[in-house]
């Protein structure tokens, strides 16, 4: 299932005159298996929203539920468990651990799982095969290209097969060819059943989504529902 329900979420920073509202009374739902693009100007509140959805940043008010789980009603440690079991993160700027190899970076979310070393390695290998990066498994992040780093980040996000993938500007540092590859990868994962919420500045990337949510000044603008193009790659088409 994994229905995402956001109800009247508000997030403010600071107090008194310096108080700033990053997310203002936002409510929406994301259906299981949906691919949602979140767009907006810089400072609109996209990343704050994604951090709230990632159980990393408690809202000032409002509720965030995944199925029947009130995420911010959980203790901090249970929130960590929730992130491990329900979420896969694709961070902006890859966020790979520099002293671990590509394979080890992909295995990171499995570190605290009670699986055998062999099983963890098999799962990481499958994730690397999915993103087509098996030949770089033993390389350090410093020895691979930007596109390969992003694919490593995607492999890490999917290694424990989470139902929800949160991606923050996953193609922000990539050229057109790599952008196309990553978006195709995300679309394939979505086809396999993963719910994807992706923050992006790129309209081309947003066109891979079923639905685009646009945020301005912390508020959600009316939704745009899209029908995915069946035979054309939006990145190539729009450039």
């Amino acid at each position, binding site marked *: 299932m994994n229905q995402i329900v956001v109800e009247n979420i508000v997030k403010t920073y600071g107090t008194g005159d310096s108080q700033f509202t990053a997310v203002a009374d936002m409510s929406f739902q994301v259906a299981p298996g949906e691919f949602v693009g979140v767009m907006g100007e810089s400072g609109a509140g996209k990343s704050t929203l994604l951090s709230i959805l990632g159980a990393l940043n408690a809202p000032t008010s409002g509720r965030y539920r995944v199925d029947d789980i009130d995420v911010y009603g959980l203790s901090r440690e249970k929130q960590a468990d929730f992130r*491990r079991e329900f979420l896969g993160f694709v961070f902006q700027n890859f966020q790979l651990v520099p002293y*671990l190899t590509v394979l080890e970076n992909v295995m990171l979310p499995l570190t605290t799982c009670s699986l055998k070393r062999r099983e963890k390695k098999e799962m990481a290998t499958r994730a690397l095969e999915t993103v087509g990066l098996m030949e770089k498994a033993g390389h350090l992040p410093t020895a691979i290209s930007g596109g390969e780093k992003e694919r490593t980040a995607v492999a890490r996000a999917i290694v424990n097969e989470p139902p929800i993938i949160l991606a923050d500007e996953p193609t922000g540092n990539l050229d057109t060819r790599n952008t196309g590859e990553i978006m195709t990868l995300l679309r394939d994962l979505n086809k396999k059943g993963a719910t994807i919420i992706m923050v992006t500045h790129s309209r081309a990337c947003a066109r891979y989504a079923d639905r685009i949510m646009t945020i301005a000044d912390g508020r959600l603008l009316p939704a745009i529902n899209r029908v995915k193009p069946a035979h054309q790659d939006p990145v190539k088409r729009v450039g």
Partner: protein
Amino acid sequence: MTLKDIAIKNLMRRKGKAFFVLAGLVIGVATVVGIISFIEAMTRDINHKLEKFGANILIVPETKNLPLVYGGMNLGGVSFEAREIDQSGLSEIRTIKNAANIAAVGPVVLGTVVIEGKKVLMAGIDFDATHVLKPWWEIKGAAPSGSEVIAGADAAETLNLSVNQIISVNGELLRVAGILASTGSQDDHLVFTALPVAQNLLNKKGVVSMVEVAALCNACPIDEMVNQISGKLPGARTMAIQQVVKGRMETLGQFTRFSYLISGIVVVIGGMIVLVTFMGSVRERTREIGIFRAIGFRKKHVMGMTFMEAGILSVLGGIIGYGLGFGATWIGAGVLSEGLSKMVAFDLTLAVGALSLAVIVGLAASAYPAFMAAQMDPNQALQTL
């Protein structure tokens, strides 16, 4: 991939910092081990030397009078002939709680005899015990057996005695088996024979004038032993000859206290090095810790990684520190005295203690950085989402 793998990889990546922490721990542990090993070696050496001094417990007949003796001059007072100790009770000495610490028990019977027309002080002793009680004795001739005597250097000179000479002692003919080299003590004035012979000559069968006891002082509480012997021999007065022991032990005790203070300061400095280095490391790894927390690491996992790094370095620091401290003590003791270096011995308790100290200091000093790392807000740490 486990938390341990991440901890080891991080240590390998930050070799300089790891070495700095290791150096702090090694210096702290090596200092403590070195000082303790040195103190132990010195204690052993002093005890060994004290054992060579011979008797360190004296049992004399109980008297309520003060002896009027000063500088070897007897100005009257209680005569040694006034009271004696019953010899049959001496076997009780070997039954005290610290009997294992008794190296030798030497009963002595004293009395005056006439040799070649001159009055001489004769001592009847147990020659087997005397080897332990008076190891410095050098006998020209042979050790006596049966009805033989040995004469002190002054006594031999005064009486004009020579080895193998037959002398008349209270009318009994005895052979001079040997003559003692000068000892600088009262022994030079005496003539010695076996205890039963002397008892017979002095008509003191079944009694002794005093008893000398050599106690092995290494870890033996001499005052307690004195009390234990006193309990067994109620009619006698037991004294510890402990001025020299106490003086040396007090000096050693002062040195020990000062050394422990220095060790404590060095250990605290070592701990501070670990604390500061780990705090720096945690700050440097803010982003990494943010990643770990974001992908589902619990606080205990983050703390666990820091403790594992500290634990690995602590164990290494403990082992290297013990080796270094032990080696430095051995070399240092050898430079000071060859005899002292022989007293430096491997001590399993100290080795385990050193390892435990390193682990305790390492983990205690890294506790605050580990706590800080675990408390880190993953969202702020990442500064991206």
